[in-house]
């Protein structure tokens, strides 16, 4: 298992992703910082870091959609899966090593988000509060959101066996909640059970910072957290079953 983890991390360290995305995040952070600070009407040093962190974390989120899909089926696309599957390791071990690597990548991107927020704040708004409380809330909200979104992306990747489609659907899921919320609110009024649909749980990142969302989702924050864990486990388990049964 440690060998597999080492190998997954080795691939990432020698790949472009772990350098490329943070560069994009840093650029977006600096561009965002520039535009926010140049807004002479509403610029406040106090809310600055929170806004910049939001920009960073949203790019980290898109990065994670791309990463989770690529790590899951990239080996099939490149045929490197033949080396991976023809060794002494079980497919469960390989699958788990990919999940753990995905988690490591998320931690890495979160750390980068903090660093870039800090750098941007120092450059454009050195005074004022860092807004740590809001930033942490934002981070936890997004983490719960990803806990549901990434298993969905991994499942789709394994079903469609196509990286591009999985990434597109992942990004669609990202926007799905805001697109279908007005419609689902109407339907949920009639059919209460529909509040348990997974798309409704994708509102968690908003509900984390805005508790009035409960009126729309019909779920408490705790219910959402429990639901997300259950859905994440189900989606991951199905993704593994598909992964395990693929012939090469």
């Amino acid at each position, binding site marked *: 298992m440690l*060998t597999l983890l080492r*190998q997954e991390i*080795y*691939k990432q360290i*020698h*790949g*472009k992703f772990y350098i490329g995305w943070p560069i994009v995040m840093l650029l977006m952070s600096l561009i965002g910082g520039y535009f926010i600070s140049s807004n002479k009407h509403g610029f406040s040093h106090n809310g600055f870091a929170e806004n910049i962190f939001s920009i960073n974390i949203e790019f980290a989120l898109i990065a994670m959609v791309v990463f989770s899909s690529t790590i899951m089926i990239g080996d099939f696309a*490149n*045929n*490197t*899966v*033949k*080396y991976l*599957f*023809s*060794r*002494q*390791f*079980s497919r469960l071990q390989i699958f788990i090593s990919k999940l753990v690597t995905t988690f490591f990548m998320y931690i890495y991107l979160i750390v980068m988000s903090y660093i870039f927020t800090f750098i941007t704040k120092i450059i454009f708004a050195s005074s004022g509060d860092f807004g740590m409380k809001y930033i942490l809330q934002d981070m936890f909200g997004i983490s719960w959101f990803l806990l549901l979104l990434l298993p969905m992306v991994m499942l789709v990747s394994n079903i469609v066996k196509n990286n591009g489609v999985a990434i597109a659907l992942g990004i669609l899921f990202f926007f799905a909640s805001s697109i279908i919320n007005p419609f689902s609110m109407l339907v949920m009024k009639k059919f209460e059970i529909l509040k348990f649909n997974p798309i409704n749980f994708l509102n968690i990142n908003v509900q984390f910072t805005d508790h009035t969302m409960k009126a729309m989702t019909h779920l408490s924050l705790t219910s959402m957290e429990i639901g997300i864990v259950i859905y994440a486990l189900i989606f991951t388990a199905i993704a593994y079953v598909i992964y395990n049964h693929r*012939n*090469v």
Partner: protein
Amino acid sequence: MKVLEVKNLNKKFGQKQALFNVTFDVEPGTILGLIGPNGAGKSTIMKSIVGLTSYNSGSIKINGESLTKNNRKSLQNVGSMIESPAPYLSLTGYQNLKLFNDGSTTDGEIQEIMKDTQIDSFCNRKAKKYSLGMKQRLGIAISLLNHPKLLILDEPMNGLDPQSTHDLRDLLLKLSKRGISVLISSHLLDELARIADYYVVINHGRVVKESDAKSFLSSDNQNIKFATDDTEKAYNALVQAGFEAKINDKIVEIKDDGDAMNKALAALNNAGLEIQDVSKDKADLEESLLNLLTEDNKKEETK
């Protein structure tokens, strides 16, 4: 102990049966050539052995240890390259070797593998810039990592130039002398004939023949050719002696069943013929295989 034991392997793709009770084994330090036409099932057998594809029934043992979906420990001793090499293209050759090393191969051994497979001159270039032959050599180098006792190579000579083919042949012979067994498939039968100790012929998913190289080549369809002062008389003498003879451009040919030469010479001498030339067909793996497959296909058709 046998390095590889494949017993009654059956595999279906949907409704289509791809393998029928495939059984063979590989002895330590030997090279077994798996031969047969395209689509015969060679790659499916190799994929089943390394766990790339599941099989419906049968058993596979590596070094006496059963290989199942949940017990793959025995694959620790297996290096493989199935169908085509597929290194990580964004990594260099050396990085690919470092990546697939499970920790048991030292840096010195990696250097040795690079030398043996002759990738040391380009191992610091990204694999995406490699030609097919270079990728092939890298694939073989990867299969040599982690001290394998069994190498499974599917068409390893594809894309190699004559010099590289020659070097690979030498490398495989060297490895077999070191006690490493090799299961190899190749369409380059001439090359295979120079290294294989045993052959297993696969056709339509069945083992058609399993034999050691020497008897495989000598067992069928080698002809002995006689040039005499009287072709017609020689033909009659050989037919009378019980041979199935034929005349081909003033040469009388008979099949060599191992003992035919002496008997035929005696028959021709007894008939008072002057023997001007005697020659024996050179053992040819390709011809032997083609004859075997033709016979097998005929049997299939009559079923």
